[in-house]
């Protein structure tokens, strides 16, 4: 019996952001996320102190899902980042850092929340409309007829996750695999509405990364003994497949709510087995070559089918059912009785394969939109990280297919955007303020806070004590190593900007990112030849970054708007 207990009163705190505790927890979170950011980001080891699973990562999704935050404000923050990551996979750390920076910067100003929120919203819409406009100077079109830009995109994602522990050669290999896996999921003759297939990631831990590979079709893992028992099929035409979603183990199905009385001597098992064998006979007469079952097949039926040269594989599991249905074109059979002839599907061929220590049964499709990405890495944690990265990359490629644009990476988009906003708020504040009650001074203050928040995001790309500069023409980011000699000759020290689009041979003016600059118009409209020739660009996903930007500003606005926190202590 449950006991009725009086509810404890809640804890109510006013102006939560001003308290020291919130500030420190926010800055701790900020330190964690900033130190993870970028290709040279530091790794975090997460463990619970009682042994067990240890996670080494620098990715926001893994990091935040393992972190246990207690303060409600942090909960809002991490939840919104996690939600962003689960829908776009990429740009989680960017969102987190930007959000923390915005909160911190705006808090220092001491303006009323109304003004801050209103102006932040204006600045956000300014950013979004610029990034979506034709004149935007930091995005490039993605050409699906060549692999160059797509490879750059995938490579950028792989290099930004140092916990994958990949060498340069391995990075190249894995990016090519990911791209191939993605391209295999695109149907060949697509008209109008494209339905993408699926790439299944098959784990192969303890192997060299170079051994990873992509195969069309589906790999079903099996023990060697099972595999040996399967008889090779010699057939020139496609193989007929029957896929069962119901159990073929011979247990009696649901008998209803009433009671079923079985007389002495009546064996239901035999009755059901009879039924199963009848089913087997039907399969044989329908010339089925391959029987797949999600659940268990009765050993007698299995043997019966094997005797008639039908391969029977059971315990496929629910995850493989959908790809199998899609690949073979079958309809999962739920009946032990008559089977409709159009429920059968087909595969081109089957074979056995051995990768590392694992044995697989390989179904080769007629036309592939399903492929298997066999992913190898040295140890468990690195493999987990690599798998997450691959999923991110595949998702980013899908998003890019929908919106074929990419943003310049390596921090160049952020600095460029900051320069654009500074210029815009300086030269044309009326168009932003329009009918609002805010003053120009307030706009300048908030714009400065917003831009410096953006710039300190890219500032956290540098973890080794180097300096970050920006040029005064394109507004791109340039970094100098820590131990380089003093400010004598910038073009010699700087070779390339963050995204790799420009080199220092041009006549450019640089200044430190942290220093104050006069606002300038960052050059928009990219030179086409520059984009075409550059083979090693760092790129970001446009869709994910746009959403990240919006989520960061919206979440910061939300948190800045809080006047009370009511904690339920029950």
């Amino acid at each position, binding site marked *: 019996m449950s006991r*009725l*207990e009086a*509810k*404890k*009163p*809640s804890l*109510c705190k*006013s102006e939560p952001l001003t308290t020291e505790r919130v500030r420190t927890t926010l800055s701790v979170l900020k330190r964690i996320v900033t130190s993870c950011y970028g290709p040279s980001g530091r790794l975090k080891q997460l463990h619970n102190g009682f042994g067990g699973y240890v996670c080494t990562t620098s990715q926001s999704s893994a990091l935040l899902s393992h972190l246990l935050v207690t303060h*409600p404000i942090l*909960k*809002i923050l991490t*939840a*919104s980042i996690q*939600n962003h*990551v*689960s829908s776009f996979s990429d740009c989680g750390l960017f969102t987190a850092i930007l959000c923390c920076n915005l909160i911190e910067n705006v808090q220092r100003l001491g303006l009323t929340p*109304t003004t801050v*929120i*209103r102006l932040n*919203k204006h600045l956000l819409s300014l950013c979004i409309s610029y990034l979506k406009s034709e004149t935007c100077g930091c995005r490039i079109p993605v050409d699906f007829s060549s692999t160059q830009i797509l490879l750059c995109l995938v490579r950028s994602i792989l290099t930004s996750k140092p916990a994958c522990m990949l060498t340069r050669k391995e990075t190249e290999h894995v990016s090519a695999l990911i791209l191939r896996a993605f391209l295999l999921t695109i149907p060949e003759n697509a008209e109008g509405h494209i339905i993408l297939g699926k790439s299944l990631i098959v784990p192969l831990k303890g192997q060299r990364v170079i051994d990873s590979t992509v195969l069309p079709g589906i790999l079903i893992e099996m023990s060697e003994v099972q595999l040996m028992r399967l008889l090779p099929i010699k057939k020139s035409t496609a193989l007929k497949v029957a896929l069962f*979603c*119901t159990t073929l183990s011979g247990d009696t199905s649901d*008998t*209803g*709510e*009433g*009671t*079923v*009385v079985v*007389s002495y001597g*009546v*064996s*239901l098992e*035999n*009755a059901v087995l*009879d039924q199963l064998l009848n089913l087997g006979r039907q399969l044989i007469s329908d010339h089925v070559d391959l029987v797949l079952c999600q659940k268990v097949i009765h050993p007698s039926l299995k043997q019966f089918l094997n005797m008639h040269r039908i391969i029977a594989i059971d315990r496929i599991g629910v995850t493989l059912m959908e790809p199998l249905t899609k690949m073979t074109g079958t*309809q*999962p059979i*739920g*009946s*032990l*009785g*008559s089977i409709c002839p*159009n*429920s059968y599907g087909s595969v081109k061929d089957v074979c056995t394969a051995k990768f590392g220590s694992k044995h697989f049964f390989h179904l080769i499709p007629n036309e592939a939109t399903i492929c298997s990405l066999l992913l190898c890495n040295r140890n468990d944690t690195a493999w987990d990280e690599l798998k997450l990265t691959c999923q991110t990359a595949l998702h980013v490629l899908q998003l890019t297919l929908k919106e074929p644009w990419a943003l310049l990476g390596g921090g160049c988009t952020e600095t460029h955007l900051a320069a654009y906003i500074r210029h815009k708020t300086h030269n044309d504040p009326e168009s932003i303020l329009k009918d609002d009650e805010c003053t120009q001074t307030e706009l300048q203050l908030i714009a400065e806070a917003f831009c410096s928040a953006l710039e300190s995001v890219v500032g956290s790309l540098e973890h080794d004590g180097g300096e970050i500069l920006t040029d005064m023409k394109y507004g791109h980011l340039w970094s100098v190593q820590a131990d380089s000699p003093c400010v004598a000759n910038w073009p010699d020290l700087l070779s390339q900007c963050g995204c790799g689009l420009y080199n220092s041979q041009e006549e450019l003016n640089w200044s430190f990112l942290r220093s104050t600059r006069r606002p300038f118009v960052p050059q928009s409209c990219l030179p086409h030849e520059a984009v075409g020739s550059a083979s090693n660009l760092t790129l970001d996903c446009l869709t994910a970054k746009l*959403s990240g930007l*919006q*989520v960061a500003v*919206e*979440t910061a*606005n*939300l948190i800045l*708007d*809080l*006047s*009370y926190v*009511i*904690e*339920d202590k*029950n």
Partner: protein
Amino acid sequence: MLSSMAAAGSVKAALQVAEVLEAIVSCCVGPEGRQVLCTKPTGEVLLSRNGGRLLEALHLEHPIARMIVDCVSSHLKKTGDGAKTFIIFLCHLLRGLHAITDREKDPLMCENIQTHGRHWKNCSRWKFISQALLTFQTQILDGIMDQYLSRHFLSIFSSAKERTLCRSSLELLLEAYFCGRVGRNNHKFISQLMCDYFFKCMTCKSGIGVFELVDDHFVELNVGVTGLPVSDSRIIAGLVLQKDFSVYRPADGDMRMVIVTETIQPLFSTSGSEFILNSEAQFQTSQFWIMEKTKAIMKHLHSQNVKLLISSVKQPDLVSYYAGVNGISVVECLSSEEVSLIRRIIGLSPFVPPQAFSQCEIPNTALVKFCKPLILRSKRYVHLGLISTCAFIPHSIVLCGPVHGLIEQHEDALHGALKMLRQLFKDLDLNYMTQTNDQNGTSSLFIYKNSGESYQAPDPGNGSIQRPYQDTVAENKDALEKTQTYLKVHSNLVIPDVELETYIPYSTPTLTPTDTFQTVETLTCLSLERNRLTDYYEPLLKNNSTAYSTRGNRIEISYENLQVTNITRKGSMLPVSCKLPNMGTSQSYLSSSMPAGCVLPVGGNFEILLHYYLLNYAKKCHQSEETMVSMIIANALLGIPKVLYKSKTGKYSFPHTYIRAVHALQTNQPLVSSQTGLESVMGKYQLLTSVLQCLTKILTIDMVITVKRHPQKVHNQDSEDEL
């Protein structure tokens, strides 16, 4: 052993509680209000500006606080709005009452009477006040609403008779509502969304029924998607179910659907029955029969063009298989709410698999425009194009937001707005008592009601029509002959040169009956349709008195200075209602009604107006108790605009606004509001009555006894021993 503690229930204690609550809610009231973050015991976080939710989240311990929260929630359940205003108003009322006691505490009393005695004396005084409050609420408030305030009302409808909604008015109303309910960077977007939803779901003929349906099933009509910016929220035509197809077969053309509430596949035995298996063959044949039967049912459905099977239970694999074979999509495990929503929209009863099988048509099928999967943020939903048989055109709202807490807030606010609109679309009956002892006709009795948008923009150049009512005598006689009453109407309507900018048509006819009656009469002067070409009025005096016994009596009514100023624009309706209560010595009970859709501009307009008229009323009151109550309420009402204008400075600050408003009222000029937006009068009225009821409840309590026992309902021996 008496393990309880008693505390004096006093206004002071209640005030202390209310002040704490006020401090919390006043931070999120109005357009400048901020958000509050609540955590649930489960660890979820919720953002809210909903006063009711905040108060409940506090889990207050204080008994008076708990009572206040209960009152607020019951008010919210009815109206969906006004929790924060409730607290602020209540707090100001208590402050007013407290101030009175402080004033009356003269030193002599303190010395002579013991504290305990004083407490009891106070209590009895509170009892009187609470009775006075109750009298005020039940007998006076309606009158003030009807006689004074109603002339300021605007209507949300562009045409009063057909109740056609004016889109711009609805936008203003919703914007003002969401201003107080969602974050300030989203309120415009959300109110636009609600407005669109409203107009998309309604047919021109649909009335209250649609509100009920949407209100009851609001949870099923929206889908929350986290991880996307709020601006991605949208309205989708058709119904979105938060399920995926268990079998999906694309189909087009003539599509029908059925709803089932049990498994289609026949089972061995139903509940309470016994199935005896005697042989293996019997088992096999029954299995075979079940299979064949299922197959036949699905085939039959297929032959009837059924392409969609909606089930509230999980169907066996066999059913799914044959559904797939026959090209039927299946959606399973729907909640009973979802099923009932679908049934209400399409008016379909569940399909029962026929026992004896025939080729006849299945009666319980409905046409579907489409049924397809909808992918929102890589999650699949079922998207149905139902063909509605009721006034509701099915549309679903997709609410996006970075966190679930924000989506919940938006959902909550949308639901509240719906409740508010549902209330607004109802007529309100006003019953009140007037004491019209003075024969001077100072109290204006000619109530001019205009439901039209014309109030918003009186055009000085247009439409001031004055017509002498000359042909009314016959009409009146006609109407009154039935009741055998003779009315001598001096229809010498003097029409002075009224100023065109006279905003509110305001007329003061005086009744001078020759005899004094004990009875009550209400004469309603209804203007019929105004003819646009001739500007001709045909007033009709209708006598609808209650408790009427004027047989053989003579009433003489003379109109003096009857001014009718028409400010309506062309083609609009002009209902004029005239209540002419009798100048008897006794009290007269009047009943009238406030038409649906009455609104006032936001920014404390209602409060200032009511404050003004209450003060006027209080001046005329003779009973001290009544005067006091009116004054307290009038002053407490100002607390709400004070909070709203807190952040404003200079010309827009509260004192300036107040003085402007009072000046405008005294000179009969239109009130000018600095803010755009409208609010429901109905909501305000109900709020006022709820607060007054809550206050009377508080005042009638004289002692709070804390019982130190677990709030267990089970009686056990221990507790008996204790007592």
